[in-house]
Every structure is written in structure tokens, then in C-alpha cells.
């Protein structure tokens, strides 16, 4: 599965468009990380726990998008976009979407 965020796949021709595919995940942080974050709010600096959490979530959203693309017979996803929104206090939604295509 080739994933890009441009309209084409470099060095390959798109022969068929299969439409939009997307994947999402909603994650919330756990209490331990929240306490650390509270401390960091005083001293400033990187919140490593959150960085990891969001990286993992984004990977999972991408993974779900790829699965969906595979299920409809695509071998690449182009024009991928990410979006983040906080749906409730302490929870964030990570969303990945793109166009499933067949390339050769």
C-alpha cells in the first residue's frame, strides 16, 4: 500500500479512482499522564506522554484508512489529510482521509 499526500503517486500512473476512504480514532489521556501534564504546565516543555499518545492514535487512524482502502481493492491512497479535533474535555479525535486509487 502506497500512501502519499499529493494528488499522484510518483513514478506511477493512476488507472482507477475508487473514492474516499477514511479512518478515525478517539483517544483520551489517562490520569497518570494528566498529572505529569499538570506539572509541565508550571515548568513548560514537551509533554512526551501526549506526543506519544497522539502519534499512536494517528498511526491507528491511518491504519484503519489503509484497511478500508484494501477492502475495496485499492493499492494506493493519495491526497491524504489529517485532522484533529477535541470532542470532549480530555478526549481528542484523530481523523485521516484520502482517495483510494489503483496504480500501476
Amino acid at each position, binding site marked *: 500500500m502506497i500512501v502519499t499526500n499529493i494528488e499522484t503517486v510518483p513514478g506511477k500512473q493512476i488507472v482507477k479512482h475508487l473514492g474516499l476512504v477514511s479512518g478515525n480514532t478517539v483517544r483520551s489521556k489517562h490520569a497518570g499522564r494528566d498529572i505529569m501534564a499538570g506539572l509541565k504546565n508550571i515548568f513548560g*516543555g514537551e509533554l512526551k506522554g501526549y506526543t506519544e499518545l497522539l502519534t499512536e492514535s494517528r498511526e491507528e487512524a491511518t491504519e484503519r484508512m489503509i484497511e478500508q482502502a484494501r477492502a475495496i481493492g485499492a493499492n494506493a491512497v493519495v491526497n491524504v489529510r489529517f485532522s484533529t479535533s477535541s470532542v470532549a474535555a480530555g478526549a481528542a479525535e484523530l481523523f485521516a482521509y484520502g482517495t483510494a486509487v489503483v496504480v500501476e
Partner: protein
Amino acid sequence: MYDLILFLVLLLLGYVFGQRAEKRHFKSIIEREQTLRDILVFSERRIPDEDQLEGILVSGNVVISVDFFKRFVASLRNLVGGRVSSYESLLERARREAILRMKDAARRKGATAVWNLRLETASIYKGAQNAVGAVEVVAYGTAVRQRR
């Protein structure tokens, strides 16, 4: 009275550690930018001469929190309006760090350039009175390398 003392202590801690952390972070950003200079980043979508290349999606993200002192300064600034420079430096740090991590991911995949860079900023942690607690910046793009 105790509240005031606690507040002043937090302000001092935030000032001392926050300034130190920021200085150290900027130093390390500048160093790593030097070592990753050979990876070119473009926000252009069309890749010239793409026949012999292959593309992979790469991304880098970072969550950075602002310190207590800067948040207090920003809330004072809110009264009169104008430039909030304490948040400007926070966002600059976050963006440069995210781009560096993306470049690092591109290098690990053997790529020499990243096309169609996109940056996204989200405020993920709200403190008291909806003040900005921490921001997340994610940078992503299509890394290209020679087809094997």
C-alpha cells in the same frame, strides 16, 4: 496570604525553569537543523522529474506546554491587547520541532526531499479559564527517494 505566596513561587519556578528549557530547546533545534539541512522541504505539490522516484508519507509531531509565568504574562496582555510574544515563541518552537522530526523520519527512510508539506496546529489541553495549556503541531508530507 498563602495563596499569594504559592502564586509567586509558581511564577518564579515557571520563569526560571521555563526560560532555561526554552533556551535549551532553541539551541538543540538550531543544532539539529544544521545536521538535517540536506533534506529539502517544499510546500509545492507537483514533483518535477518524478519517473525514477517513489513516495512515502512521513510525519512528525510534538506537544509543547507553555510555563506558568508566560501564561500569566499572556493573561495580562489579554487586558490591553497586542502581540502575545510568549505564545509566539511557543508556536515557533513547536513548528520547527515538528518539521525536524518529519525530516528525521524522511532520512530514516532514505529520502532526500519532502514535498507538499502540511502543518496543522491544535490546542489539545485547556487549563483554567480556557487558557492555552499545550499545543500540538503535526507536520506531514510526501518523502521521495530513488526507486530501487
